[in-house]
């Protein structure tokens, strides 16, 4: 029964995709509903599965031998992923209502865009679900790649130049990531001759170059997870993507990278080798750096989605740090991981809702601002850890660290929370600046509201192991609450200070421009060399042609000798006879 549901949760999105394709190919483009109920339901079986309980299934004919299972770790993961996907889908129905009507009025370009989106959306979902339930490398890699490449359509949807740029950055980095992941998998799996993620973990743990394999994989997944340095696609892709797309992108897809780490790194294993620990420390530093720098850079952004993207980077930085703890302090992991999962889930929902919120603020329903803005702010505040699930999350990660006396890290995380608060407030303020009334849609805000509530009560519905999550005791509240106020205060003061100096926003996607410049500079010589080679080749060809021609002429002249021979046959015969005679005599005399 459960395994049937498992298969269904995979086949359903596929079926939906095929259905869409069939409609697009067959039905008259004029009147069909791109976001039908079928489409909305793509993620529901997965959601059902997540609450169905744990399940394991092995299929031998599947690629290199498939092994799918839903365990304590992946169940909550699947739960929040599926939930966010369904919410985003519903939201999308509202969000694209306008385009839908345009399409039905026969606008070809829009039809194309919608068809593309509605076709690839379920596929991306499929990939996401598969990589969560996959326990064998092939399926995991398949899911990851499928999600990555299908999401391209989500990013590039609007088709504007900025969208193209964002999509370009996205796909390039994605390819780099895929390459790194493939290399890492091949290496680690080759060493241990295994086909499962479990085997990879063990092989990394024991292999002599384990740290390097781990590093490869970390970087590969880090592209998705927005590790500092590889994060540049987020701020470029998010602002241009449609709100629901951004919601899933930064809600679930970047979490896929995180899941990748968790499932390939030997977190919390005993007998961690020194290089691995060092790798953990490096990750830790990188994560914290991301957390702070992203916050600092993000507050200066103008586009609210860019700001939110940076906040995602900073949040993922914190998660990176937490995962790194699994390498640095293995024994902490067993109690730390529920916190991490909760963090991920809560961030997914909250961030998703925030992104949906951007679309709300652009098409405000006819409610009083006093109602809308607090609603918009709620997930942000929760993200900063002030209320609801946020507090629980903070506590869930802090308490294990307390027990292990990692006070510095706790402090740093709190300060990072300040950054979060600042980012959220900036985002809200930018939304306020760019708010537009009208054009709202029931599906749109419906999904949004559900999202908000879901985000706020995340711990209640997330199927985590029992007693792994507790409410923070009252004395801790202060330690959890202060970053929010500090953050807001910081933003306010900064705003006051900078009011008179008109600052141009630094470009979104900070390092991207650096990379682009470097690569362009690098390509110059390559192009020159290339041109030189081609010129050289043509020169060679020409000279060879000439040589051949002259050779042929020489040959023809030489062949004139044939006539000479013809005139001297008898003489030659006499000569031959003489030659033979002389040779024979001479040989005979010797």
């Amino acid at each position, binding site marked *: 029964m459960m395994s049937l549901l498992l298969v269904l949760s995979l086949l359903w999105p596929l079926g939906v995709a095929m259905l869409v394709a069939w409609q697009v190919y067959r039905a008259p483009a004029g009147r069909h509903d791109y976001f039908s109920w079928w489409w909305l339901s793509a993620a529901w079986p997965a959601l059902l599965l997540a609450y169905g309980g744990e399940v394991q299934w092995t299929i031998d004919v599947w690629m290199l031998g498939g092994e799918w299972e839903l365990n304590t770790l992946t169940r909550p993961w699947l739960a929040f992923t599926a939930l966010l996907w369904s919410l985003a889908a519903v939201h999308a129905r509202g969000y694209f209502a306008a385009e839908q009507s345009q399409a039905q009025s026969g606008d070809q370009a829009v039809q194309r865009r919608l068809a593309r989106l509605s076709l690839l959306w379920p596929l991306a979902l499929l990939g996401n679900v598969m990589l969560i339930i996959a326990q064998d490398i092939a399926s995991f890699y398949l899911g990851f790649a499928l999600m990555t490449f299908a999401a391209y359509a989500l990013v590039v949807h609007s088709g504007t130049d900025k969208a193209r740029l964002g999509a370009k950055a996205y796909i390039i980095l994605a390819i780099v990531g895929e390459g790194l992941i493939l290399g890492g998998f091949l290496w680690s799996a080759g060493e241990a001759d295994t086909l499962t993620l479990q085997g990879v973990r063990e092989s990394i743990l024991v292999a002599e170059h384990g740290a390097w394999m781990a590093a490869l994989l970390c970087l590969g997944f880090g592209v998705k997870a927005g590790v500092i340095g590889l994060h540049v696609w987020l701020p470029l892709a998010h602002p241009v993507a449609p709100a629901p797309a951004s919601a899933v992108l930064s809600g679930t897809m970047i979490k896929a990278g995180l899941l990748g780490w968790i499932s390939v790194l030997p977190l919390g294993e005993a007998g961690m080798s020194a290089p691995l620990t060092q790798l953990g420390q490096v990750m830790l530093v990188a994560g914290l750096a991301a957390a702070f720098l992203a916050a600092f850079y993000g507050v200066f952004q103008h586009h609210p989605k860019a700001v939110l993207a940076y906040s995602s980077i900073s949040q993922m930085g914190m998660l990176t740090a937490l995962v790194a703890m699994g390498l640095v302090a293995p024994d902490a992991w067993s109690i730390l991981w529920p916190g991490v999962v909760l963090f991920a889930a809560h961030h997914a929902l909250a961030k998703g809702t925030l992104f949906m919120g951007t679309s709300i603020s652009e098409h405000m329903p006819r409610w009083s601002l006093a109602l809308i803005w607090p609603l918009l702010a709620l997930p942000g505040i929760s993200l900063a850890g002030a209320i609801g699930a946020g507090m629980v999350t903070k506590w869930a990660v802090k308490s294990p660290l307390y027990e292990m006396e990692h006070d510095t890290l706790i402090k740093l995380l709190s300060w990072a929370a300040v950054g979060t608060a600042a980012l959220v407030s900036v985002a809200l303020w930018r939304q306020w600046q760019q708010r537009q009334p009208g054009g709202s849609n029931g599906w749109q805000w419906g999904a949004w509201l559900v999202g908000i509530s879901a985000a706020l009560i995340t711990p209640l519905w997330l199927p985590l192991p029992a007693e792994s999550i507790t409410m923070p005791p009252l004395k801790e509240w202060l330690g959890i609450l202060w970053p929010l106020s500090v953050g807001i205060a910081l933003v306010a003061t900064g705003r006051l200070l900078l009011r008179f100096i008109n600052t141009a926003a630094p470009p979104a996607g900070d390092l991207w421009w650096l990379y682009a410049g470097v690569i362009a500079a690098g390509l110059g010589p390559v192009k020159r060399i290339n041109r030189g080679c081609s010129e050289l080749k043509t020169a060679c060809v020409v000279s060879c042609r000439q040589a051949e021609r002259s050779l042929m002429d020489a040959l023809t002249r030489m062949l004139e000798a044939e006539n000479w021979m013809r005139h001297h046959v008898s*003489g030659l015969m006499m000569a031959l*006879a*003489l030659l033979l*005679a002389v040779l024979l005599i001479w040989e005979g005399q010797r």
Partner: protein
Amino acid sequence: MIAFFEAIAAFDVIEVLLALGLTGSALVCLFDRHLVRACYFFVFFAAAMTLAWWLLGAPWLAAAELGLGLGLTGPCFFYALGHVLPSASSSLERDTFSEPGSRVAMRVLLALAWFGMVGAAIRTVIADMAYSPLEHPLLLAGVVIAASALGAFALHRHLLRRLLAFNLLGSGVFMLLAGVAGTSAAAQAFISVGLVVAWLGTMLGALLIRRLLHLEGVEALGRDGNPKESAI
């Protein structure tokens, strides 16, 4: 040249004269540009050959030579010249083709070398031959004729003269054959076959010469390979 000295010692007048006559007529016939005279000398040469065979005690060969050489081959030449049953095309008088000196020199050298080789060969054979019914001057003449005929054959371009040269070469070879192998049945068989072949060849050649004269004119006889081939 021991063979030669022995010949002097033996001093058989008739045979020496015969040998000289044969050689002389052969040389004239080979190197005279005046074709008609050359042909006459060929007839004389054939007659001398007949005599020679007779003297060598090979009457059968003598008869063959008389019939084939004198009776049939000679007329072939005159037919080629266009004297007997003259046809539309003109009759031949002189060979007007001139070979470059280098070619001449080379041919002379080759002929001399050839002469030396054949002479040496014959000597090696004779040296251990117990008894030869033939005195050596004729043998010597044979060597000379063979060598010079081959040289002439290689030298000339006029087809008729090459044909003549071939015939003389044949006779020279037959003489050598008879000289080394005696007039055994085998030798006679060889020679008569050779005579028949020579006659057939000559007849064919003469026909061809007339035909070529008819088709292309005299220069065809000197042309060795048609211009088209020089493209190859």
